[in-house]
């Protein structure tokens, strides 16, 4: 396992982390806090969308994000041949 390979692996990891954290931020702090009023103009069923993101949606997205990260990271581990056993 060479140094360049490890550097490339680390960059791929950081890129994935950055994308995931961007989604994490937009869904909770964006839709649920900073943009809550414009989002509240949109209604889904009995929910105002901003309120829904703050009390429900952001949590679902957090769960999905972690599973996505774990799945994608396992793939990257294999691509760069750094996976365990």
């Amino acid at each position: 396992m060479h140094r360049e390979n490890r550097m490339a692996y680390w960059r791929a990891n950081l890129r994935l982390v950055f994308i995931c954290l961007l989604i994490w931020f937009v869904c909770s702090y964006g839709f649920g806090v900073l943009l809550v009023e414009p989002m509240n103009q949109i209604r889904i069923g009995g929910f105002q969308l901003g309120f829904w993101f703050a009390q429900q949606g952001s949590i679902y997205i957090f769960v999905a994000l972690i599973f996505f990260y774990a799945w994608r990271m396992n793939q990257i581990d294999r691509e760069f041949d750094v996976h365990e056993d």
Partner: protein
Amino acid sequence: MSLQALTYLVVGLSFALYIGIAIWSRAHDTRDFYIAGKGVSPIANGMATAADWMSAASFISMAGLIAFLGYDGSVYLMGWTGGYVLLALLLAPYLRKFGKFTVPEFIAERYYSRTARIVAVICLIFISFTYVAGQMRGVGIVFSRFLEVEVTVGLVIGMGIVFVYAVLGGMKGITYTQVAQYCVLIFAYTVPAVFIAIQITGNPIPQLAFGSEIAGSGTALLDKLDDIVMSLGFNQYTSGTKSRIDVFCITLALMVGTAGLPHVIVRFFTVPKVRDARVSAGYALFFIAILYTTAPAVGSMARYNLINTIQPGDVGAVDGNLAYADRPGWFQTWQQTGLVSFEDKNGDGRIQYYNDANADFAAQAAEYGWQGNELGVDRDIMVLANPEIAGLPNWVIALVAAGGIAAALSTAAGLLLVISAAVSHDLIKGIIVPGISDRGELLAGRIAAAFAIMIAGYLGFDPPGWVAQVVAFAFGLAAASLFPVILLGIFFKRVNKQGAIAGMLTGLLFTYGYIEFFKGLFLKWAGSPWGDNVAANWLFGISPEGIGVIGMCLNFIVAITVSHLTAPPPEHIQHMVEQIRVPRHVEQAHL
């Protein structure tokens, strides 16, 4: 069977289960005791983490808190879940690869410094004791309300149970007990929620009922709730009163604080592989999310139920309010505990519940002939009395008692374990007696756990005034001291000992100073709090609950600046960082 007998039976059975598991999963060596022999499957670890994380406060108080805060309650929902994303992406896999026993141990090795280890141990012990005091109190309260024994007796029984499985089983015993406790608590939480959802909206899934129409009315639950709370002078349910920046900072402080809490981080040391650590955080959050997405639904429905009960007719109509003589059974039951109270201020024999602190609504209220809010409701009954309000059978009520105790015990046990590990592994083996044998260390760990339980019991029995105040501080501290140095330790090779210590101390002192200034933690005799705790005085409009975010930023800035002004860390430390960044072991020659 009477409710009391049934409650004894259900709680007793759950205790027998926990002790049975503890005996089956005894710890044989320090690996078992600290990290369950690294043999826990990711799903079991996820459940155990969820039980560890969800405290008596999550189980008993959170839905009620949200019921009265409305939108502002979102800070807790997002804040106490979003931290797991940070954990899974930024900390857990790397700390698992590092492969040692405790959080201060990582800080000590990465920053090649005993001083850093001691600072970390002090932060850890402080955070954990703050937390555990609240849990023991929770155990006592559940016992006294449901089993009608003294709070002290409840506490002693709770301490005894935790003693058996924490001291005997260590992390291994705790983990498998927590799996059982998770099942008990989540079942106890969702069953009443489902019944109430059906009663109000006809939809059995609370998360969907939350956004459904009230059965037979054609109006959505949240719209109806907005209408009725505003007609009584309360703030609109779906919008908040806190400033935008404050909501932002409190949420972020709670998230980062969650990711920096030692008893949460250490859970990811117990799984066999790096990839298990990643996915295990996902399972943990999934199991937590079941309760955390149900809680706001329960909160809104409980608030609606409460107001509807008190105000069955039109607001302001002479017969619009419930007559005191007609109050329902649960009202009388909970009146005896003092959690519900009534004072007939205008002497009309009816109960008025409205916001008498709202100056704009005062004239309106006077016109109705109301002379002040007459109903006192403790937010905790929103969960505790839910089954009775919904008219559910006694076994559900008994289950809620067992669930509340499970939530409190599981969190207390997890906290006690990190305290004992910090004492036996970081202080005794790491600093005082480095040559101690494995058996000696295991014994030291057990003795430390036993002492920690006694102190926790004492704090729960007679909580000093600062306990409630310091919960915000515990999160702020974790966010401002531990989280940044762990993160920098993994992602920035250049950060060295000097930077880490300077950063931790800056974050710690700034956060402590700010909270002391506005809330007064320990320096009461010196006249603190020194500033009025109002928005106009806050730095950038950030309340003491959210100030950990600024402490964290300062920690990052100071750590990076100081590191660049001093010598880089030695080569073997840089190699160690390279090593923890990849899941597979890298040969020395390739580093």
